[in-house]
């Protein structure tokens, strides 16, 4: 048995314990793990402490990992042992009980402590806080406060920040008369602007919490037991319980004593390594990354994932690049979501809405058409959309009101506000029959991100249209414990890069095969879920000039047909523009007879589908058809549906059939992040439904064509946006190709054009593709031309397979030979 390297983690809070969870999930045998935690427990969800204080949660309900978990995972936990020093020369950690632990890798996750301002009378002669004065940071603090509250009538909370208000909420639930004393002019000044702070104060008034703003506390009054507070203007407040919640300070003294570089926090790089010791790392509230010290849970979970990737070797390239901070919470029963900047920078646009009567306040800070920050008070419905737009940096709708009032008007006919309000037996995912109860159960079982939840339940893995509702259930069940899954920003889950970075790395390192991408950019770890997406991307980047590893393709793309539920395949030959002939139909009929095709069907894309063909018969069927592939199996340009246009239709104003045929001939087989279905319509009656296609061209009077992009009528119904209106077939072909290429280069894998166009925004697309605002049109046109030139009909492989067993499932075996 190999000896495992020794990992020591100082801190058993949200960051330290999460890191260990992430490590053992990747490789339980990677390290011999020792942890130190100065509380005598397993680890618990600190975010829920105010619930424990209020009595809505039992202390035992907020444990994430009980002590037994550490045993099961073979993690040696020194619970209740405070680390007294780190000896970096000997690579040892020394506990205050004399424990000595050797390390090869050390992670400091000491979190932060309550900041307590110096106040007269705060500390008694014994060196303890005066009886009745508490900080609010740990389970023990909670128990002590609750204990004391039983004999108290009026509580004062010093500090009107997030934690102070949480404490106030808890105390109010215990039926105390609660006063919040705050030094600043408005509440929660870190997260809120003045108007929102005032709105929150009014809401607290209604709940019976009194606020004292702009007050500096100078002394704690009382003899043995606290009797009141004194302020700098000489006034007093009588009270018999005080909670000091004036902010938090990173716990950095251990690191500082060990001569690690410390500023506000322990300084770490994108690899989360300390600046001056390659074997020491820091994460969580004690760490300072790119000048930021984070006090929220989402960044700390991202850090834990990255560090676990690096330490276990699951992905040694993984980097933490900082977090876009957003949070959604309830303060004093008031729903609040805040993200990014609360005040505008120069040139920003600010959108405001205030409704003091209902306590609703909304503010957006818009920069370059994207959300730079937002405050949302008293309206939980608008939060998911805003958080999504903020996280993904989506282009905002021109009409900002759509974001502020997502359910205004007719789009939501009186149904429940959110999937969270549905009963447990309500079916959320209609493709896989997943109920809300099943989702809630999976969240209880530990799924904390949308991807984990979808993976575990299969919800959202069919058509994907239920993902927003799955997200709502996740948020409702997990609360603040929802983790932003960094992989959701990657092009494929197994390579930790967003698409533009991935494309740049592939070009820079000249990577021409899927296996070389895994080797160079994913630490050599081959992820099956990422292979098909990478194969598609390489073909887009290098056109015909890449190393085509067939195992990276989905089966449909290996055998150029669509796999069916019984393992047979469907064959759809190309019928350009849906225009066929008697001779072609006769040939198809003959093939159907000869091969005893179980089902012949007209498709929605105006073609003919031969269903139930065994894999090894595919080459014969193709040969007998003598027609090119219709690509009905591929993530590629599929078909261009047409109406009869001017040739016969008495209304037609444009020749839609000739245009549709030209489009299919030009773009057939062009690979893309997802399928592209096109249509052309000869007049605005739109019989071919061109306005709900990925790209559609509609003829209008005056000999012109409107080009629609981003339409769809599948699991999601969306009318396309008009990219531009042009005069000729050639113009339609040019803009079609240009948009296709832009989509190929910029969309995430499996992102349909209707999501892509919404994400980028039609104005931006017009600027780039029509006005040539970035000067890239010539390059896009050239790139799509190269891709078109590289086209080869894949059905030619029927005659010349790329491997003798390409179309065989069962290997031909030499006669069985038993060797007992």
């Amino acid at each position, binding site marked *: 048995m190999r000896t495992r390297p020794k990992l020591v983690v100082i801190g058993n809070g949200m960051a330290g314990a999460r890191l260990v969870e992430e490590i053992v999930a990747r490789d339980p045998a990677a390290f011999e793990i020792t942890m130190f935690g100065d509380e005598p427990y397993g680890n618990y969800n600190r975010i829920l402490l105010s619930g424990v204080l209020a009595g809505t949660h039992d202390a035992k309900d907020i444990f994430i990992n009980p002590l037994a978990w550490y045993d099961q995972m073979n993690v040696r936990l020194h619970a209740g042992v405070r680390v007294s020093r780190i000896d970096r020369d000997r690579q040892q950690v020394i506990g205050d009980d004399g424990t000595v632990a050797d390390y090869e890798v050390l992670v400091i996750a000491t979190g932060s402590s309550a900041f307590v301002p110096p106040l007269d009378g705060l500390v008694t002669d014994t060196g303890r806080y005066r009886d009745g004065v508490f900080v609010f940071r740990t389970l023990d603090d909670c128990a002590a406060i609750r204990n004391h509250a039983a004999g108290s009538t009026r509580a004062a909370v010093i500090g009107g920040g997030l934690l102070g208000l949480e404490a106030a909420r808890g105390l109010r639930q215990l039926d105390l008369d609660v006063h919040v004393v705050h030094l600043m002019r408005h509440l929660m000044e870190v997260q809120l602007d003045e108007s929102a702070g005032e709105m929150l104060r009014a809401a607290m008034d209604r709940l019976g919490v009194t606020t004292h703003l702009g007050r500096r506390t100078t002394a704690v009054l009382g003899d043995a037991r606290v009797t009141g507070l004194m302020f700098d203007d000489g006034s007093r407040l009588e009270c018999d319980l005080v909670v000091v919640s004036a902010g938090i300070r990173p716990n950095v003294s251990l690191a500082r004593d060990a001569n690690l570089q410390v500023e506000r926090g322990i300084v770490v790089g994108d690899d989360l390594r300390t600046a001056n010791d390659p074997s020491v790392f820091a994460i969580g509230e004690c760490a300072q990354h790119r000048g930021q010290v984070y006090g929220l849970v989402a960044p700390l979970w991202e850090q834990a994932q990255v560090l676990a990737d690096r330490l276990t070797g699951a992905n040694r390239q993984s980097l933490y690049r900082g977090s876009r901070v957003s949070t959604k919470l309830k303060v004093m029963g008031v729903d609040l979501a805040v993200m990014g900047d609360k005040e505008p920078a120069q040139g920003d646009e600010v959108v405001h809405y205030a409704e003091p009567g209902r306590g609703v306040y909304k503010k957006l800070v818009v920069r370059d058409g994207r959300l730079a920050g937002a405050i949302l008070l008293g309206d939980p419905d608008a939060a998911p959309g805003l958080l999504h737009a903020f996280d993904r940096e989506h282009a905002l709708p021109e009409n900002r009101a759509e974001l502020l009032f997502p359910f205004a008007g007719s789009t939501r006919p009186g149904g429940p506000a959110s999937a969270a309000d549905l009963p447990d037996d309500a079916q959320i995912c209609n493709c896989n029959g997943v109920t809300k109860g099943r989702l809630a159960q999976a969240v209880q079982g530990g799924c904390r991100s949308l991807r984990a939840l979808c*993976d*575990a*339940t*299969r919800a959202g*893995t069919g058509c994907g249209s239920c993902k927003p509702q799955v997200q709502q259930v996740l948020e409702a069940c997990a609360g603040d414990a929802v983790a932003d899954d960094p992989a959701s920003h990657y092009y494929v889950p*197994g390579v930790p890069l967003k698409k533009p970075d991935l494309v740049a790395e592939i070009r820079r390192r000249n990577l021409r095969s899927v*296996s070389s991408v895994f080797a160079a950019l994913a630490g050599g*770890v*081959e*992820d*099956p*879920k*990422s*292979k*098909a997406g990478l194969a598609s991307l390489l073909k887009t980047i290098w056109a015909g000039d890449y190393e085509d*590893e*067939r*195992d*990276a*393709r*989905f*089966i449909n793309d290996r055998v150029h047909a669509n*796999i069916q*539920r*019984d*393992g047979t395949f469907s064959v759809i030959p190309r019928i350009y523009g849906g225009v066929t002939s008697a001779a072609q139909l006769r040939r198809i009929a003959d093939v159907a007879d000869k091969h005893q095709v179980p089902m012949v069907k007209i498709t929605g894309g105006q073609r003919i589908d031969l269903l139930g063909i065994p*894999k090894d018969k595919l080459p014969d069927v193709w040969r007998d058809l003598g027609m090119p592939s219709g690509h009905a199996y591929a993530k590629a340009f599929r078909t261009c549906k047409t109406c009869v246009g001017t040739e016969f239709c008495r209304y037609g104003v444009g020749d839609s059939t000739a245009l549709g045929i030209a489009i299919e001939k030009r773009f057939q087989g062009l690979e893309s992040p997802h399928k592209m279905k096109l249509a052309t319509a000869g007049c605005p009656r739109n019989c071919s439904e061109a306005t709900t296609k990925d790209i559609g061209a509609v003829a209008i009077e005056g000999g012109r064509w409107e080009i629609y992009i981003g339409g769809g009528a599948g699991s999601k119904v969306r009318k396309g946006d008009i990219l531009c209106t042009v005069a000729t077939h050639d113009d339609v072909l040019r803009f079609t190709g240009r948009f296709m290429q832009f989509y190929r280069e910029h969309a995430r894998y499996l992102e349909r054009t209707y999501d892509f166009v919404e994400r980028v925004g039609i104005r931006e697309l017009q600027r780039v593709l029509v006005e040539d605002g970035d000067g890239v049109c010539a390059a896009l046109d050239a790139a799509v031309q190269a891709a078109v030139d590289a086209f080869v009909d894949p059905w030619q492989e029927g005659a010349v397979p790329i*491997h003798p*067993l*390409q179309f*065989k*499932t*069962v*290997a*031909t*075996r*030499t006669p*069985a*030979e*038993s*060797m*007992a």
Partner: protein
Amino acid sequence: MSVAATRHSLGPLDQIPAGEARVFSVDGRAIAVFRCRSGELFATSAECPHRGGPLADGVVGGHAVICPLHGYLFDLRTGQPVGRECAPLSTYRVTLTGGGDLTVDLA
């Protein structure tokens, strides 16, 4: 009663393209043999326990295969499903002889 494993020869390795899998019919059983790009070999029952999908047509990566029909993922080393609930696959020992032939052991 213990049953000794029986070793069956499956013929040359190059029947399976690198990174893919093929089905071999052995003693009336359909066995999928996976040839990973790492060089590792695995053998499992050929049908997905979920809805009978042909696992040999799946995408293979690392130590896992994804069923082509509904995306169920299995660990080839243990046959266990990953991430979703499903019956496990049967696994078999597969080896490469010095002469480059595949053999599989059936209990």
